[in-house]
């Protein structure tokens, strides 16, 4: 930290400050004392003597990578998206290992705001642990999501993205409902906007999800409440009445609101 103070003072040496910061980040992450990053970040971001753009690109990318990771751990997805995306865009295209590291954290963030990666991306950078999850989101396949989380549980817990991925469940539900809606629309467009609870229960049973009617009702209410489904629920007739316009709003780059 003393070196830091020295760097802050002398003009020409200031440029090295970010490099030093990144080294500190690496150390803190390895030691597990991540909370110590906070004071370092404060020095960089609040001190007027540092102009972020002055620093060498390589250091800026590393800095954004680590601060982006911190945002992921704190579940600030918009900030995480911004920082990790910056790192990705400005990263040397040759350094595949680095790109992989950035993507490892960027993908869960993007998934949380409704953006899915293409399969070739996952294959190219060997991030196949995410394949099933992406697939589950595309298909509305709850069983696959849970299975994927279980299969890679240790890995996801160690990297710290497990809780982020777990939250994707609501989006998978939305996708499932949408599929049911699409099928109903094909069968009988005039009645498509009414979805019987029984049908949803049946679909979930087919996916081997052990849920009783009350729980399914609860999920429906939550989806409506969080604006993943537009409509209302008629309790007596056990029917979800969907809005005729845009019943399944897209996330549009925002995480599911709480």
């Amino acid at each position: 930290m003393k070196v830091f103070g020295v760097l802050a003072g002398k003009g020409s040496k200031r440029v090295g400050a970010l490099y030093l910061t990144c080294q500190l980040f690496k150390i803190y992450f390895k030691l597990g004392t991540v909370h110590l990053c906070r004071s370092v970040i404060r020095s960089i971001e609040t001190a007027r003597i540092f102009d972020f753009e002055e620093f060498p690109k390589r250091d800026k990318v590393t800095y954004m990578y680590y601060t982006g990771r911190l945002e992921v751990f704190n579940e600030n997805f918009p900030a995480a998206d911004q920082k990790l995306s910056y790192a990705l865009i400005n990263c040397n295209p040759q350094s595949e290992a680095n790109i992989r590291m950035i993507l490892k954290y960027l993908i869960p963030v993007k998934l949380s705001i409704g953006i899915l990666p293409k399969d070739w991306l996952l294959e190219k950078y060997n991030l196949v642990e995410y394949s099933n999850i992406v697939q589950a989101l595309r298909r509305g396949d709850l069983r696959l999501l849970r299975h994927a989380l279980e299969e890679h549980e240790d890995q996801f817990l160690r990297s710290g993205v497990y809780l982020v991925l777990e939250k994707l469940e609501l989006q998978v539900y939305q996708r499932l409902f949408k599929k049911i809606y699409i099928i109903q629309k094909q069968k009988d467009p005039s009645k498509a906007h009414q979805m019987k609870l029984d049908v949803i229960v049946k679909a979930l049973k087919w996916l081997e999800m052990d849920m009783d009617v009350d729980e399914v009702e609860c999920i429906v209410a939550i989806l409506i409440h969080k604006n993943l489904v537009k409509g209302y629920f008629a309790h007596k007739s056990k029917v979800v009445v969907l809005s005729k316009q845009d019943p399944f709003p897209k996330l549009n780059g925002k995480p599911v609101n709480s």
Partner: protein
Amino acid sequence: MERRHHSQSHSQRQQGRNHFSSSSSNQSRSNNRFSFPKSSSSSSSANDVRDRRRETQEEKQEEAIVGTCPFMCPEAERLQRQRLRDLAVFERLHGDPRNSSPALAVKKFCRTMSAKEVRASDVRPLPVLEETLNYLLSLLDSTEHPFEVIHDFVFDRTRSVRQDLIMQNIVNDKAINMFEKIVKFHVISHHKLRSSCSSSSISPLHYLNLEQLTKALTSLYNLYEANWSSKPIHEKEAEFRSFYVLLHLDSNGQPVGESLSLWFRHVPSPIIKSKEMWFARQALRYFQMGNYRRFLSTVAAEASYLQYCIIEPYIDEVRSLALCCIHNCYYKLHPYPLGHLSKVLMMEESDVELFCNAYGLQTCIDELGNKLLPTKQTTFCRPKGGLQNYSFLGFQQLGRQIEL
């Protein structure tokens, strides 16, 4: 590289047995990375010191102090407090505020200004600390005084016990046992103090208790890790680890210490797979998803008494969410039967009505005499004061007092 709990206090005379932990320092897990924020004024200097890992030559020669005080309270302190009439209700001999005895006086918590000033005669050795703790916890059964008074006393005196343990660098099984008991005390107080506070603002006692709960929990986790190589799994470790998860269900609240994602990274695998941790993770998942149905029913079915004490504030929050959802998302022309609402909220029907009223909602009765809640009422609002305590169905069997 041996990991040491560096203590500032050192005694020139005492060279007694010291329990340096056979540490698992080869793995990065053994570091003190749980830093609940040092709401710094209340953290004793000994606690801060444990976080640092300096390994200078002079420190290798320092050894932790070994206490010699044979009483629950050092004699000098007792005599001084008798003189100054600074005796708690429990310390008074026959109610006399000027008189105490070795059987009644218990050492008060005091921030050590400088470790060099600490004398071995003021520090209680392990056996005395064990006796002291047992005595303190036995006071919790007393019915003579209001709970707040008992809590206040035990709160302060157990803090001193913790301080003595840390100062002497006692990190063995017995220390773990004692810290577990102390955490239990704080958890139950967390529950009891909440019941007694009527306003929505958290009472200072409640807040301070939570603060010490987290500190004691941190120390406990460090002890588990320090003992990892000698005894990998402690009987109650899974449950006590689950408390951290349950204390952090609300990720949108003020982050206290490490975020859960970071914390999970270094929880040992057998703990993660344990029944208690599984429950905590499920509760977390349901809470964050908003699955009120599963959250409430799982808590009722699987929470231990201590887990319930911690999760209790969230139960109201989830019920609130449930009411909000049902009220806003259900069809206006189909009022919701209270009987069913009672099942969803896991509350007695009579309480359900009060609950609805607290949110500015009126109930009505249909022609068969069933009570109903019409949805989408315009009078829906957040309750202004705090909520009263409501029943929690399916939970009566856990109402028994836990043995500490």
